[in-house]
């Protein structure tokens, strides 16, 4: 359709722009008056936190890249130069390095929120799947970022993980050589990883945009897991959720600051302060904490190809989760049995994380296998069957009936009409 937009903004400059390019109207619609369920708890902060975190990663990353040298002979020393010679370089680097951990903490909680409140179900399947793509991209980005400081763990972690592709029959070894750009992890690998590590976050920005766009079509889920029935169930995003998200952001920054300023190496491995040495394998090669559960699944299978497939499978099941869970009821609040199983899943994942940090010997092998088994049973068997058998609790009639005994009250300040909401 051709034609100027009829802008309602009073400020003449904003009005002039908005008439020609209605971005102000769009922001107002999507983040201003956007109708959002009124019953969110603080779990609904984590999407916004992940966005803030992504921005922090990009800003600190760009500054790091101004001083970092992606060269096998210079990389390690250039990181030390950043720490010592660049003004506030230590702060930028510690924010970036700890930011990766914060990002995964926030994202894993965000994902758990989705599991607990059934946010992946009809009609939010695509929204959920885009989320899983975000997780995969984050993992790829973090993996390649961890290689850049070119310490022992960078080097050997890269070697172990890229080597996984050699499990592919026939072409495996050729693929690995192609990934490395040589016959071992080396200068060529470091250079291409740097290039991709710079690229992927911007791909992430694009995918996050799609994630939010999809969200603004379906609207948010909420702790009751029932759809919004009308304006009495919602609040305008601003100021209600802008201010509630701000509280979350403050607490997030507080935790982040404690890490960066007081225990900046809490999550890092001492081995990564030793320059990469292709001739000396570290006593133990342990990936970053956020990969440990997947690493444990990998090592729980005695066969290499099997292990690799199970590891990727553990993410693939998340992808098809909307169709594995056959229950129509979303929230754990009304699914007492599923809730127990979900806590078992959390325990299994934490167990896997612990197993991943240990040598695969003795008890750890068995724990790893049991937890892996439960992980897959949960998604592939329990969820499909439970949906058919479980007796769920009665659902409330609507969000406002639940929160306002006796029915919906008057609308607080300008809640708009359509049943949609926030991220």
């Amino acid at each position: 359709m051709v034609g100027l937009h009829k802008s309602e903004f009073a400020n003449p400059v904003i009005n002039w722009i908005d008439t020609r390019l209605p971005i102000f109207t769009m922001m107002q619609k999507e983040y201003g008056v956007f109708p959002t369920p009124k019953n969110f708890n603080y779990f609904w902060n984590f999407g916004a936190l992940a966005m803030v975190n992504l921005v922090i990663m990009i800003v600190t990353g760009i500054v790091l890249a101004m001083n970092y040298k992606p060269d096998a002979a210079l990389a390690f020393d250039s990181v030390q130069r950043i720490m010592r010679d660049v003004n506030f370089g230590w702060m930028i680097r510690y924010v970036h390095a700890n930011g990766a951990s914060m990002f995964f903490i926030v994202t894993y909680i965000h994902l758990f929120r989705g599991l607990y409140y059934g946010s992946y179900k009809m009609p939010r399947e695509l929204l959920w799947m885009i989320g899983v793509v975000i997780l995969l991209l984050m993992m790829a980005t973090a993996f390649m970022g961890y290689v850049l400081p070119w310490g022992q763990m960078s080097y050997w972690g890269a070697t172990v993980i890229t080597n996984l592709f050699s499990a592919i029959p026939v072409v495996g070894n050729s693929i690995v050589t192609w990934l490395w750009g040589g016959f071992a992890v080396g200068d060529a690998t470091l250079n291409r990883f740097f290039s991709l590590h710079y690229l992927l976050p911007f791909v992430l920005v694009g995918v996050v945009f799609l994630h939010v766009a999809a969200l603004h079509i379906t609207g948010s889920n909420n702790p009751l897991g029932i759809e919004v029935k009308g304006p009495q169930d919602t609040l305008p995003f601003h100021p209600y959720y802008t201010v509630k998200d701000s509280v979350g952001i403050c607490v997030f920054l507080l935790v982040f600051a404690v890490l960066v300023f007081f225990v900046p190496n809490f999550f890092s491995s001492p081995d990564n302060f030793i320059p990469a040495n292709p001739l000396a394998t570290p006593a133990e090669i342990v990936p970053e904490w956020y990969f440990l559960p997947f690493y444990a699944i990998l090592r729980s299978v005695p066969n290499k190809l099997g292990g690799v497939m199970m590891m990727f499978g553990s993410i693939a099941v998340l992808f098809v989760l909307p169709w594995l869970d056959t229950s129509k009821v979303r929230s754990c609040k009304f699914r007492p049995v599923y809730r127990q199983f979900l806590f078992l899943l959390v325990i299994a994942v934490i167990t896997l994380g612990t197993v991943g940090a240990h040598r695969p010997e003795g008890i750890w092998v068995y724990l790893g296998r049991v937890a892996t088994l439960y992980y897959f049973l949960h998604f592939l068997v329990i969820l499909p069957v439970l949906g058919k058998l479980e007796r769920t609790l009665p659902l409330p009639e609507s969000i406002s009936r639940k929160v306002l005994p006796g029915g919906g009250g008057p609308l607080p300040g300008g809640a708009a009409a359509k049943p949609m909401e926030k991220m």
Partner: protein
Amino acid sequence: MRSLVLASHVLAALGLASMGLLAAGTPARAQEALPHQEWSFNGPFGPFDRAAAQRGYQVYKEVCSNCHSLKAAYYRDLAGIGLSAEQIKATAASVTVPDIGPDGAPAERPALPSDHFRSPFPNELAARAALNGALPPDLSVIELAREGGADYVDALLTGYSDPPAGMKMGDGMNYNKYFPGNQIAMPRPLQDGQVTYADGTPASTAQEAHDVATFLAYIAQPEMEARKRMGVKVVLFLIFLTGITYAVKRKVWSDVDH
């Protein structure tokens, strides 16, 4: 309320899990449990003990620097442990560093405060040739690169003894109960009275080890004091900001039944 309880459970679980992971993630390096020392720089406010770090610099300069480089550090960094500009100039000038002379040929000149610490060997081969095949690691970030940090370095330097009866030592190897595998190529570097401290502190082996471990802690993280000072301000500010934001949130939400 319910959701808060839930959130706290989740956080507690995550916290426990991550602690477990960290404890679990540390490979068994040291042979014997490390004795924990009191370090001035431990804790959220602790500064470096200037006197100990300066004595430690003396130990490094007189002993360790014969074998170990400190490539990431500059002489000017010594300002952080309380050396004056004059002292730094003097200590830098006491060594020569490789440079290119006016005729374009390699030459040596006295070091300046802006120079990196001089390395004892021009390259790895030279070090190995001089030390019976062993390679002394660069010590710039050694205390971040070893589990236990300063505790480990201190223990290592004081952990020498004769090997237990029946243990077969490799050629040129020394027994050390804290080194992984217990056989280390570094000969015992510190003895009682190895250095004569300028400030008159009695130079026992333990004192020297403690001092040089303090110095190396500073060299590994010269930004630490500034970082902690800034951290205190940032955290206080964020607590204040969180309080205000929460109050605003309460106010905004006061007209909503939920």
